């Protein structure tokens, strides 16, 4: 592997200054994805800036009843936090469904947002990949794609985003905070990940030289009745082939508010706003849940081997919303 430098940052401004000075630098959080990619040669940074010591490891309840989550909070700490579990249970469940205990102890919130796809062509430097080498081609479209995107993909890339946490964050309108040499900024998660288009190598709208400092979760009373369900090819330690974060507020059999986000179907966590619109104000019934899923999935463009995800997501929407309806009735 390429020889690289290593610097440990102790404050946010120091980290941002180091980042500004070395265009080929990468920020090192838990290293659970970046280090693997360095070993295989997918990532070849000149410098690692270790941000694990930055004072961004707190979870705080905001005045309006939301949460502020620091970028270096570990996945384990996030999932175990009582306020997260009480206010946004689907977020804790999503985080716990990912990786293993050891990895969650290392992985950070900031790194989780920026983790790369596990597409087998992306992770193999010998294969062509538009995400790694723009213009090289996407062999997944004609090749192995049974866990690739059905929504929002393009002819340039059909990879899916691997994060579970991000799916719950999408459902709860999280806002990403960052710092650059020019000062701080914010990006709603809905704008954080860029559409694939013909630039799959450009994954986020973060300005260059930006350091993610944390997340803001606006207050969402609906999130108190929420769940995350993940389907994967083994019981643990695998990325989703389809996942769903759902929150539901039902009153007298009518949907007052609903949040739905799909995982493992697109290049980013997929907020199912069409389905939400179809459901809101209507009956909380299995038929309505299915119709809402169908409305969302009408835009799906399946490849020869991933069409099952349409059925899977539809089934998950019906199953999870039915469970939440029952939970709300208790």
């Amino acid at each position, binding site marked *: *592997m*390429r*020889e690289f430098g290593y610097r440990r940052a102790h404050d946010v401004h120091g980290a941002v200054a180091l980042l500004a000075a070395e265009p080929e630098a990468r920020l090192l959080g838990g290293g659970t994805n970046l280090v693997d990619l360095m070993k*295989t*040669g997918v990532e070849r940074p000149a410098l690692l800036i270790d941000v694990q010591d930055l004072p961004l490891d707190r979870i705080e309840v905001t005045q309006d009843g939301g949460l502020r989550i620091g970028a270096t909070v570990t996945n384990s700490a996030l999932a175990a936090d009582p306020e997260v579990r009480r206010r946004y249970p689907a977020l804790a469940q999503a985080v716990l469904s990912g990786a293993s205990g050891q990895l969650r102890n290392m992985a950070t919130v900031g790194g989780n947002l920026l983790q790369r796809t*596990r597409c*087998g*062509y992306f*992770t*193999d*430097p*010998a*294969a*062509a990949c538009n995400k790694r080498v723009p213009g090289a081609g996407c*062999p997944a479209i*004609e*090749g*192995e794609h*049974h866990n690739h995107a059905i929504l929002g993909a393009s002819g340039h890339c059909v990879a899916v985003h691997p994060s579970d946490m991000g799916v719950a964050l999408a459902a709860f309108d999280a806002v990403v905070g960052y710092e650059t040499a020019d000062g701080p900024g914010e990006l709603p998660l809905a704008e954080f990940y860029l559409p694939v288009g013909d630039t799959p190598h450009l994954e986020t709208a973060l300005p260059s030289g930006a350091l993610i400092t944390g997340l803001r979760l606006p207050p969402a009373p609906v999130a108190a009745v929420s769940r995350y369900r993940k*389907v*994967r*090819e*083994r*019981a*643990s*330690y*695998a990325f989703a*082939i389809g996942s769903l974060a759902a929150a539901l507020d039902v009153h007298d059999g009518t949907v007052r508010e609903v949040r739905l986000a799909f995982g493992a179907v697109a290049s980013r966590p997929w907020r199912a706003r069409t389905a939400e619109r179809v459901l809101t104000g209507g009956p909380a019934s299995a038929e309505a849940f299915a119709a809402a899923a169908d409305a969302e999935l009408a835009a799906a463009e399946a490849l020869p*081997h991933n069409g*099952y995800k349409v*059925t*899977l997501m539809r*089934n*998950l929407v*019906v*199953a999870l919303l039915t469970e939440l309806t029952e939970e709300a009735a208790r």
Partner: protein
Amino acid sequence: MTTTTTGTTAVTGAVGAAHTRLEGLAKVTGAARYAGEIPFAELAHGWLVLSTIARGRIRAVESAPVLAMPGVLAVLHHGNAPRVDGNYTGPLGAPDPVVQVFQHDRVPYAGWPVALVVAETPEQAREAAETLVVRYDQEPHEVAFAAGHPDRYTPENSPQSPAETEKGDLAAELAASAVVVDAQYTTPEEHHHPLEPHAAMARWDGGRLEVVDSNQGSRFVAEELANLFSLDPASVRVRSEHVGGGFGSKALRPHQVLATMAATVLQRPVRVVLTRRQMFSVVGYRSPTAQRIRLGADADGRLRAFDHQGESVTSTVREFIERSADMGRVMYDAAAHHTVNRVVRLDVPTPSWMRAPGEAPGSFALESALDELAEKCGLDPIALRARNEPAAGPVSGLPFSSRKLLACFQEGARRFGWADRDPRPGRRRDGRWLLGTGTAAAHFAARAAPSTASVTAEADGDFIVRIAAADIGTGARTALTLIAADALEVTPERIRMRIADSDFGPAMIAGGSMGTRSWAWAVTAAARELREQLALGGGIPPQGITVRSDTTAAIAALAQKERHAFGAQFAEVAVDVTSGEVRVRRMLGIFAAGRIVNPLTARSQFIGGMTWGLSMALHEEAVRDRASGAPVGADLAGYHVAAHADVPPIEADWVDDPDEDDPVGIKGIGEIGIVGGAAAIANAVWHATGVRHRDLPIRPDRVLLAGGGDRAAG
């Protein structure tokens, strides 16, 4: 109780009692060193470069820029590598051409070794290897395997293991059958990835080639290296003290040859360690299979027609046959009986032996088909098998040395609670999960191969046993200690077991479920003779008294019989047809495998095999990209094996299986644990959902699209 007597008191009973591994403490504390981590002075490090095209020729290996990189010592390739001679036939046949590295410019598949970069550190070697530019003239390739490939052929018959067997009039018996099952099954390309990757250090020391390796047979590797490099066998020494798993992948592989080449060229020690990604291309794998099975039976389930046609892949450079159709030659008889293993040559790496070669994929198809026949006949699957127990080998006509298959089913059914099973599918539900149970038979041949051993009576009263056995994590070192202790009638503490050194003489490799049986035979023979010598009296001289054994004649004299281990597998599964998830809730395996030497490690080995059966049923599948010919997701994130959360409580036990005519009575347990496991699970998935899954692995997308469970839902 402690025994401190000095050999006059006979002690036996070590065999059959549970013993922890002799090296267990060293392994769990990290004191046990493996081939990739033993330090050597002046050690240089080789990094392998594999072809990125699937067929063609190497036009150029652009070494010059790489040789200028920090620490780089050499770049070996077809233009400068020492010559090797692969024109010989060893115990496992002619060598796989992949070990005859860098002898020509042809590339027969993606992942073919094209260069080795040697440097002062592994990091330097890797960086240089990844920088090295190799130019090719590419040719069209084909890697896609499917049933009925137009280029498939039936290999030549060999007397020991014919490609095809046939008796009776198949068409007539099928036509006369009241019930017929005719089904196609497939299993994917599967890989064996031991925890410890392949690693070898080679150096020249006083005119001898010394190799410190991770292998399944040090003597075998030494003899192969001697053949390849045209060396006097006595001038090659291979050791392999600890091995972190083998499963068939650790015989002779390119890493030992590469280390030897580089050590020869550089005249200093060189180590080559393979990466996971490289292992997907250069250490062998299990071919995908497509199998058609036709069973014809009378209404009462008695078989009239048996037809098992297996197809598998081999490379263009070597014929390897995944013998999926062999199982029926032992298991089931019929008036018309036909089995054939066909292959097709594609531009892929040569497959190889992987745990229970032939039997693992073959048993999935055959034991699924038996379950389908039981369903069609309205018979209990165990009753169907009982009705078809053959009196002698269906193909050979030879008597069975022992055949305790029904005893396994009987004991298994009792412990599993099989009698309470409602045979109708799709009747049990637990929340979103449909529940089902299934069973399948298991079998593996009990063979032996000639081995030598020496036992030395030391002056201090201890005994040193030397045999070129391999402990690949199975507990062989401990088992042989128990065998030697009983044969010498002393406690195990008095035995000093030395293994995994080619200087100890010819011995069987750890493979084919033959290791413990073959080695125990040799150790017992030497120990008994030594004991007889000691019984004559007289003192033990300072150099000790050594007796050597060789079992070649004894094995040749063994009566011709069908010698096999048998077993019965049971599984209970939960299936969510709305998400496609399958969870195994419990497994039980009951085996009849002769004398069990160490119940503790034997149980572990059975459970390990059964876990692999689960993994094979639900998870394992290597994917090859048709366009590039290369594997996709060639790492353990992409190639799923069962995770801990997938593995339920698994019970393994055995029934008595004595064989008075057999000199050792041990049958070997290395492979049988995986046999039938996938079929038991697939049959349980049918019982849960009413849908047959004939393609492995039973992935969520397949379950989801196949549906089922309608009756349970109603």
